[in-house]
């Protein structure tokens, strides 16, 4: 931890970065905070807690106002995947971001069922192996179609339309949100029109979702949203060999055809 603090302090003092987005502990509560060279004393309160805030979402708000500054940010595996996607989508310039990587503990990795609980470069913590767990998908897949629909309609009908899943999402960076398009989804209803509300969002997550699980943590109705997004994520890998959060130079195959591939997916399940 002391090394981490020193590292950040040096970067701020040398002017390598204009700010460092991390978390401080205030009266026992971890909260996001941007360290600058004017607030170095706050580094005493720097913390790497076991709760997560949407760091790259916050980063984007700062970058939008300071597009030319270099900013450091504390990232876990999920945040780092988000950085790759944000760069792919031209929301940030990787050259202007200095990720400080934190590896998650085994407990956190298991709690999050995270397949890659570490960032590209680790500055803090010990790398642990990812968790391979698709029991949530298997649970749904074990049902027949009619039970699945009952299950999901039951889940969706709890939705209070808080938009929390979108608001907390690092990948929901659009200026205008389809979920608020009143030609598609009626406004003013809670629950919203189902299943369209949730399926539109789920489809958008194909080629976007970095499987951080913040959506599910933010859902007051406890809807297993992440399973939906994990499903499309898995499909993108199976059908199109595309996994988000891996390589900045790749492109979403649902948006871009690619220069050398006019290939048609062959593995199409027709039932």
């Amino acid at each position, binding site marked *: 931890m002391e090394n981490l603090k020193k590292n950040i302090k040096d970067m701020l003092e040398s002017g390598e970065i204009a700010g460092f987005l991390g978390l401080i502990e205030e009266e*026992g509560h971890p909260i996001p905070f941007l360290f600058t060279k004017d607030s170095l004393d706050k580094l005493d309160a720097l913390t790497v807690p076991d709760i997560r805030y949407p760091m790259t979402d916050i980063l984007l708000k700062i970058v939008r106002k300071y597009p030319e500054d270099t900013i450091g940010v504390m990232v876990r595996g999920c945040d780092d995947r988000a950085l790759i996607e944000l760069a792919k989508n031209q929301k940030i310039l990787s050259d202007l971001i200095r990720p400080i990587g934190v590896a998650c503990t085994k407990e956190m990795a298991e709690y999050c069922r995270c397949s890659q609980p570490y960032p590209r470069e680790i500055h803090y913590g010990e790398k642990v192996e990812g968790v391979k767990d698709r029991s949530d998908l298997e649970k749904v897949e074990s049902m027949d179609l009619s039970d699945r629909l009952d299950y999901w309609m039951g889940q969706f009908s*709890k939705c*209070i339309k808080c938009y929390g899943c979108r608001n907390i999402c690092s990948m929901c960076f659009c200026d205008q949100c389809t979920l608020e398009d009143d030609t598609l989804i009626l*406004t*003013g209803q809670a*629950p919203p029109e189902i299943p369209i509300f949730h399926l539109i969002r789920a489809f958008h997550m194909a080629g976007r979702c970095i499987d951080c699980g913040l959506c599910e943590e933010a859902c*007051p109705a*406890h809807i297993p949203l992440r399973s939906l997004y994990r499903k499309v994520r898995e499909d993108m890998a199976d059908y199109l060999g595309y996994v988000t959060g891996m390589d900045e130079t790749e492109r979403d195959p649902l948006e871009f055809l690619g220069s050398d591939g006019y290939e048609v997916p062959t593995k199409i399940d027709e039932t």
Partner: protein
Amino acid sequence: MAGLAAAFGSGAMTNSVPEFEDADCILITGSNTTSSHPLIASRIMTAKAKGAKIIVIDPRRTHMAALADIHVKQNLGSDVAWINGLMHIILKEGWHNQSFIDERTEGFEELKKVIENYTPEKVEEITGIPKETLREIAEIYAKSEKSSIVYCMGITQHITGTDNVKSLANLAMLTGQIGRPSTGVNPLRGQNNVQGSTDMAAIPNKYPGYQDVTSDEVREKFEKAWGGPLSPNVGLTVVEMINAIEEGKLKGLYILGENPMISDPDSTHVEKALDDIEFLVVQDIFLTETARKADVVLPGSSFAEKDGTYTGTDRRLQKIRKAIEPLGDAKEDWEILCLVGKAMGSKGFDFASPSEVFDELAELTPIYHGIDYDRIEHEIIHWPCRDKDDPGSPYLHKDGFARGKGLFTAIEYKPPAELPDDEYPHQLTTGRLPFHYHTGTMTRVSPSLTHEVNEAFIELHPEDAKSLGVRNGEKVRVSSRRGSIEVKVMLTPGIKKGVAFIPFHFVEAAANRLTNAAALDPIAKIPEYKVCAIKIEKLDGREA
């Protein structure tokens, strides 16, 4: 408030919010929980996922009603009858808790006599609740290990509001579903600091901490603390003050952060009073409909611009913290009030911070006595918290009721003040939407919220609409004996036939131009917002 205080000795929510999660049965009535208290609804959904039975008794198929195990629509204002009916069945079947009744309560014999008459058949006739369903509800509520009652304005905003609440208290005591975790009788407070403002004696008959203004001993304590003589007389309520203006008795009024022009029943009447009053001061953050009537408007600050505390619905003390300075020349509200006090020549307003104000009020308020800013930084404290070592009280009435023994009150059903007739054949009830708050002054300037809904509507049962010859989206005139508004129709199969619903957030079609202000609960002085008679007229058939 008054009802629970009479039964238990305290009017507050008996249990804390997280406890809902562990209940086995939650009976919700007169609360549109997912709209008005979404994060409490979240706990209730968790309880259901863990196996709890959720019962909703509400004339509308609210979102929570749709998620519930049982939903029945009672006739408006028939609450005492169905609660008595439940107790009748419970007693007949022997599902009551005799040892709890013997050890912890009084007044049982009188109650027994009255509920004897509330047979399931009679109750079905009054309330419209099928007797089989009533029995099912009675069994689940009484026999579950931990049953919790949740209610809101749908119970209190009736002429029988106090009776309704006392009846719910009767039900909880009869079955011993109180005084333990995840049980109790739980009024959900609509506004952020209803509990705190009442605790702080924004009521005409108490000093802070529910100490009677009529008690000589209490008054002497406050006279000493505040350094001057105090009035021994109970003051006037909001509605009584409005009437007193009309009668020429009230000459000056100070309104802090409220918009009675919209929130009070019978707005026409309020408007006239505020026009007539000699001197009106309004302290607010917007130039509300009420502030426009003022002689002096003092610009206050939003929750982001000041420090202070709120007391949550479950008696939980929490801080609000200043994030930015007040806008322009506006000031923090506590500071404005100190300046007003000082300008009147008083010495009792020399506070440097809200923390110092809190220290004074905690000193004088036994239920807050052990609380200070430092403690609530680190602890979750529910009052009563009587000294620094007291951890506070997540749930009340553990070993005894605040008043000693719990008091049963035998109550007969009384119909609402205004029933439908030939001229006004429909019934109106009012309430909130999930997207707006109270009179809309804060939410109707919020783009994310106005995107969802930004105009009033009237929910009608499709069959009622058919007989009126009106279609979805068409504008209609809705009138009561007090006033008239125009709103568009929203067909809603989930509402009880003959009943219409209008959300009260919208000033241009204020539901409270229609409601019945004259009909007050005799004790709590709450107007009967939730029932009045209306007529609905087709206009020219235009879409709104």
